[in-house]
């Protein structure tokens, strides 16, 4: 009996110890959430010419998970956006900045998958990237970004529905001023709104421009369950680093950028 009892104790101890090993950081492709977290954050860290996107999730216990590396690149990267849909599918969007080309890329992972699928190029052939913003509505994704073409950054967007991406379209008419840092959300009129910074020649400074897209749905407004202003972001994100946050449970304010 004693050896059997000892063996049982060992098995019990292992059943506790093994899940703890899963919390080690820098373990890619390990994030799988049973239910949407209250918030997801993504940021970039770089060292010795290697760039990584790290993410963390805020659970109901008000604790942030340990950082996980979701992407490693030898090219400079920017503007990470980590999004979770209602069905548990994860999307990771980012800009890759090669010498002459800034491409917008993404990859996906279904709820029951452990590995990310191959990355997809959403847009390329431009220079610089100054912001990406993603908003979901039902099965749609709206992705806005700023890239430089014709010597100055402009805001472009694509929509994703029924497995198909639209063509990249400009948000605003062609102009000779910088347009950058898009921020998108859904308003109480069931419109997707994108705001961005645009240069005012009159003020010689940046002002906020806005454009709305009618979602053509009609449902009553209900307040978002997550009050964004109450979220305390993790302090393990390096100070001064611009990070993005996504709130899977929210309908209206789904994302924001912040820095510690």
């Amino acid at each position, binding site marked *: 009996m004693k050896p059997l009892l000892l063996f049982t104790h060992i098995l019990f101890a292992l059943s506790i110890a093994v899940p703890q090993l899963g919390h080690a950081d820098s373990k890619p492709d390990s994030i799988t959430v049973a239910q949407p977290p209250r918030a997801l954050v993504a940021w970039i860290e770089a060292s010795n010419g290697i760039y990584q996107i790290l993410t963390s999730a805020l659970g109901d216990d008000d604790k942030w998970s340990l950082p996980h590396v979701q992407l490693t690149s030898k090219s400079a990267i920017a503007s990470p956006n980590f999004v979770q849909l209602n069905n548990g599918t994860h999307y990771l969007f980012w800009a890759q900045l090669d010498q002459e080309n800034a491409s917008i890329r993404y990859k996906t992972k279904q709820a029951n998958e452990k590995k990310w699928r191959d990355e997809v190029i959403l847009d390329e052939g431009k220079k610089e990237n*100054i912001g990406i913003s993603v908003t979901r509505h039902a099965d749609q994704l709206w992705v806005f970004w700023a890239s430089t073409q014709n010597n*100055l950054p402009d805001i472009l967007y694509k929509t994703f529905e029924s497995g198909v991406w639209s063509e990249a379209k400009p948000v605003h008419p062609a102009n000779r001023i910088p347009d950058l*840092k898009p921020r998108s959300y859904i308003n109480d009129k069931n419109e997707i709104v994108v705001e961005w910074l645009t240069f005012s020649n009159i003020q010689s400074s940046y002002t906020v421009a806005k454009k709305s897209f009618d979602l053509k749905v009609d449902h009553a407004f209900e307040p978002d369950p997550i009050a964004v202003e109450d979220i305390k972001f993790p302090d393990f994100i390096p100070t001064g680093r611009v990070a993005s946050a996504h709130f899977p449970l929210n309908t209206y304010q789904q994302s924001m950028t912040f820095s510690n």
Partner: protein
Amino acid sequence: MTKKISNILFAVYLAVGTQTAYAKQDPAVIALFGDSILQGFNQAFPVQGFAMGQVNFGRPSIELNRILTESNRPSIVSNLGFGGTPSGPSSNPALQSSANGVARIRNDLISLKNQFSGSAYFVLIMYGTNDFAFDIPASITGFNNGLLIEEANNLGFTAIVSTITPCDTCPNDVNDINSAIVDEVVRRFNAGADVHFTNNHDLLRASWVGLYSDPDGVHPNNAGYDRIAQNWFDTHLERLIEPRNNTAYFPAVIDLLLSEQ
């Protein structure tokens, strides 16, 4: 005798009249408009803040003034460099600098014009080295330089725009910035702007380390500033600023007149 007196009087009239005209010929007014580099900052001259238009202040201003004076082109060389500032506004409110180039050029050049009457007005622009610290990408540095050209022209200044000098410790790519500056200068020139271009980056690049760079790798040393000043003169100012009238022949004329009998 009467003829001799007449000749003397005529010669005196000619000399005085010419000298009076000479005195009325205003100097060229030249503004150095940029950050600490145009201010002349380096280890030997660790100036801070705004040069406030001081004349013959900072190595670039002093050296350019010397070159112009020796070439009989007396000028007012005013230092409008403002250390640590970007070329234009930042899109990040937390990084805003009210002393950015686009925000201050109008008032600075108006003040200069109010202070000095010039036969011609020039602004030497070199701006963008600090832009990385203000979240300003290269394309917008180029755009900002275009706004500086436009405002300078609006106020009657000929703009002479330079690429930014090498920067060993800047995280941004200086080549991207300079490409954007060149593109904007060309675009403005083709649209009719009164603008000229100098490439002070390439001028210094080959000998930056060891000859023209201050120990911080960001600012030129005095040899570097002297080289820049000479380049401004050689490429544009020598051609754009007329030398003063040569009055050396007057003594000879007077001798000739006095010798007639």
